[in-house]
C-alpha cells in the first residue's frame, strides 16, 4: 500500500491539533515520532520487495470501485523515500527537546508532517501537475515553519522565500501548460510518448528552460540561489535541517531529474548547461561560505556548493555520474541535517550563532563537537566517510568523460570545503574555552540522541558504501539511465 506514505502523515497531521488540546507535549511528541518510525520501517522493509520486479504500480480501490489514484514506485522514488524517512525521523526526535520554548508543539508537528507528506507525494506520483501540487503542499507548510518563531528575522526570511517560491511555481506551471498544449497529456508516460512522436525540439527546449528556472530556484542552483542564505539560517534549527537536507533536494533535484531524464530525454545541450551551472554553484557556494561569521549562514552557503556537485554529476548523464550524484544526495542529506541540528544545539546552549563569539565548546559539549566533526568531514570528503566516496565517484565520472577542467575544479573546491569546515571546528569547538561559556551543558537527551544517530549513519554509509550502493543507489541510477524507455514501459499503464 504505497499510498500509506502520504495518507498516514496527513491523517496524523489533521488529528494533531485536537490531540494538542488534550496533551500539550507528550502525546504530540509520541504520535509524530511513531509516524516517522512507521514510515521508515515501512520504506525499508516492504519497499525492496515492491520494487524487485521493476516498478510497482499501485491502483487504489475504495469500496470495490477503482479510484484513480495511481502511484508509481520505482527504485529512484524508493531511494528518495528512504532518505526522506531517515532524515525526518532524526529531525522529529530532535524537535522533542528543541521546540520546547517555541510553544504550540502540536501545530509544529502537524506542519512538519504535512511537509513530509507533500515530499512523499511528490516522489510517488506519475503526473506532472500532481508533482507541482505536492511541491506546493510542502512549500506552504515550509512557509509556516520558517516563520514559526515569529521573530523579525524569521518573518522577513519567510516573506522573501514565499515571494520567490511563488514566482518559481509560475514558471513551472507555464511549462506544464505548454506541455499540455503540445501533447495533450500531463502524465509522465503520456508526455514522454507525445514528445517522442512529435520531435518538437523548440518546444522541448523552451519547456526545459522554464523547468530549469523553476526547479533550479527550488534547488538553489546559482544564479537562483539568493533566497537560501536568508531563509535557511532564520528558520528554527530542525526546520533548517529539513529544508537544507531534504526539501531542496526533493522539490528541486528530484523533480528536475525525473523530468529531464524520464520525460524529455537527456541531450547534449542540457548536459553542457547543467555542467556549467553545477560548477558555478560549487565555486560560488564555497567562496561565499569562507567569509561568513554566522554558523548557519556558512552551512547554508555550503548547501549551495554541495547541490552544485549533485548537479555536476547529473549533468554528465553517464551512469557513473548519476551514481555519484545520487549517492551525494544521500550523504549530503544525512550530514547537512546533522550539522544544522548541531547548530541548533549550540544556539540553544550559547544563545548565539556568531562563530567568533564561540570558542572551546568541545570541552563542555563533547557529543555535539564529535558529531559536528563527523558531519563536516563527511561533506568535505574525507575517507572513510560517505562524502568521500560520492565525490570520488563524481570526479572519476568527470575524468572518464574527459571533462578534465570540471574535474580539477571539483577537486579544488573539495579542498576549499575542507578548509572552511575546519574553520568551524577550530573557532567553535576547539581552542581555548571562552569565559562566557563556562557553564554551558551538553544538549538535552533527544537532541543528542538524534544527532548521534545521524553521525553513526554518516560513518556507516561511508564504511559500508559498497553495500549501500548496490542495494539502494545503483537501481535508482539505472532507472534514470534508462531514460525515456523507462517512462514508456516501466511506468506505463
Amino acid at each position, binding site marked *: 500500500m504505497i499510498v500509506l506514505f502520504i495518507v498516514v502523515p496527513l491523517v496524523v497531521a489533521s488529528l494533531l*491539533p485536537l490531540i494538542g488540546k488534550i496533551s500539550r507535549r507528550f502525546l504530540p511528541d509520541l504520535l509524530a515520532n511513531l509516524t516517522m518510525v512507521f514510515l521508515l520501517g515501512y520504506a525499508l522493509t516492504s519497499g525492496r520487495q515492491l520494487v524487485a520486479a521493476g516498478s510497482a504500480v499501485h491502483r487504489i480501490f475504495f469500496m470495490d470501485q477503482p479510484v484513480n*489514484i495511481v502511484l508509481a514506485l520505482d527504485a529512484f522514488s524508493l531511494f528518495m523515500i528512504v532518505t526522506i524517512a531517515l532524515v525526518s525521523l532524526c529531525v522529529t526526535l530532535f524537535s522533542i527537546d528543541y521546540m520546547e520554548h517555541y*510553544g504550540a508543539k502540536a501545530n509544529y508537528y502537524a506542519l512538519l508532517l*504535512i511537509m513530509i507528506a507533500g515530499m512523499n507525494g511528490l516522489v510517488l506520483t506519475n503526473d506532472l501537475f500532481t508533482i507541482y501540487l505536492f511541491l506546493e503542499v510542502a512549500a506552504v507548510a515550509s512557509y*509556516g*515553519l520558517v516563520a514559526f518563531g515569529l521573530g523579525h528575522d524569521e518573518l522577513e526570511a519567510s516573506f522573501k522565500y514565499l515571494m520567490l517560491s511563488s514566482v518559481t511555481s509560475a514558471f513551472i506551471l507555464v511549462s506544464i501548460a505548454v506541455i499540455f498544449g503540445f*501533447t495533450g497529456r500531463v502524465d509522465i508516460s503520456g508526455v514522454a510518448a507525445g514528445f517522442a512522436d512529435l520531435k518538437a525540439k523548440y518546444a522541448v527546449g523552451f519547456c526545459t528552460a522554464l523547468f530549469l528556472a523553476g526547479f533550479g530556484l527550488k534547488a538553489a542552483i546559482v544564479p537562483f540561489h539568493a533566497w537560501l542564505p536568508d531563509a535557511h539560517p532564520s528558520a528554527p534549527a530542525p526546520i533548517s535541517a529539513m529544508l537544507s537536507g531534504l526539501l531542496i533536494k526533493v522539490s528541486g533535484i528530484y523533480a528536475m531529474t525525473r523530468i529531464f531524464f524520464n520525460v524529455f530525454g537527456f541531450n547534449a545541450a542540457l548536459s553542457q548547461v547543467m555542467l556549467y551551472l553545477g560548477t558555478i554553484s560549487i565555486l560560488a557556494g564555497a567562496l561565499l561560505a569562507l567569509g561568513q561569521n554566522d554558523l548557519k549562514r556558512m552551512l547554508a552557503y555550503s548547501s549551495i556548493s554541495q547541490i552544485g556537485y549533485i548537479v555536476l554529476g547529473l549533468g554528465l548523464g553517464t551512469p557513473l555520474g548519476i551514481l555519484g550524484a545520487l549517492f551525494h544526495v544521500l550523504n549530503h542529506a544525512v550530514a547537512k541535517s546533522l550539522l544544522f541540528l548541531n547548530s541548533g544545539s549550540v544556539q540553544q546552549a550559547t544563545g548565539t550563532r556568531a562563530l567568533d563569539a564561540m570558542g572551546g565548546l568541545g570541552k563542555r559539549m563533547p557529543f555535539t563537537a564529535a558529531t559536528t566533526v563527523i558531519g563536516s568531514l563527511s561533506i568535505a570528503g574525507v575517507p572513510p566517510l560517505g562524502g568521500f566516496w560520492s565525490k570520488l565517484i563524481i570526479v572519476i565520472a568527470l575524468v572518464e568523460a574527459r571533462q578534465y577542467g570540471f574535474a580539477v575544479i571539483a577537486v579544488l573546491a573539495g579542498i576549499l570545503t575542507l578548509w572552511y569546515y575546519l574553520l568551524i571546528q577550530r573557532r567553535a569547538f576547539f581552542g581555548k574555552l571562552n569565559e562566557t561559556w563556562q557553564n554551558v551543558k551538553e544538549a538535552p537527551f533527544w537532541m543528542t540522541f538524534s544527532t548521534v544517530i545521524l553521525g553513526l549513519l554518516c560513518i556507516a554509509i561511508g564504511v559500508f558504501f559498497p553495500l549501500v550502493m548496490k542495494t539502494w543507489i545503483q537501481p535508482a541510477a539505472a532507472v534514470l539511465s534508462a531514460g525515456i524507455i523507462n517512462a514508456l514501459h516501466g511506468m506505463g499503464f
Partner: protein
Amino acid sequence: MHIALLAGLVVFSVVAVLLRDLLKAAISLAVASIFLAVVFFTFNAPYIGVFEISVVAGLITVLFVSTIALTKDSGDVKESKLPVIIFPLFFAAFLIVDFLVMRSLIGRLISIPGAAEQRTFGDVFWYQRTFDLVAQIGVIFAGVFSVLALFRKSGRKDE
C-alpha cells in the same frame, strides 16, 4: 469581443499594480478577476468562471481588504514615482516584442491534435484527477495550520 475582454483584464491589472491607494488597487484586482471569469465563460467553462468569481474576486479580495484594514496605521510607504512613469515605455516595448514573436510562431509549431471530451466535468474532476484532491486537502491543511501557527497567542519566542 474576446480581445476586448482580455484587454480589459490587462488594463485593470495594470491599474491594480500602479495605483498608490491599496484599497483601490485591491478592488481593481477584483474587477480584473471578473473580466477573466467572463473570458472563461466564453470558453464554455462555467465551473471555473464561477470559481474564479467567488474565490478570487470574492474570498481573496476580502482577505486583502481585511489585511489592509488591519495595517491601516502604517503611514504611507514612500514609493518613488519613477516606476509608474517609465512603465508605459517598458509595457509598449514588451507588447510589441510579444505580439511579433507570437505572430511568427503561428503555424510553425506542430502539436498532437486533441479529441473532444465525452465525459462530464464531475467525471473528470472526481475520477480522473482524484490524486489532486488529496493534494488539495493537504494544501488546505498546510495553509490553515500555517495561519494558526502565525497567529498564536502564547509561547512567542523572544528574539
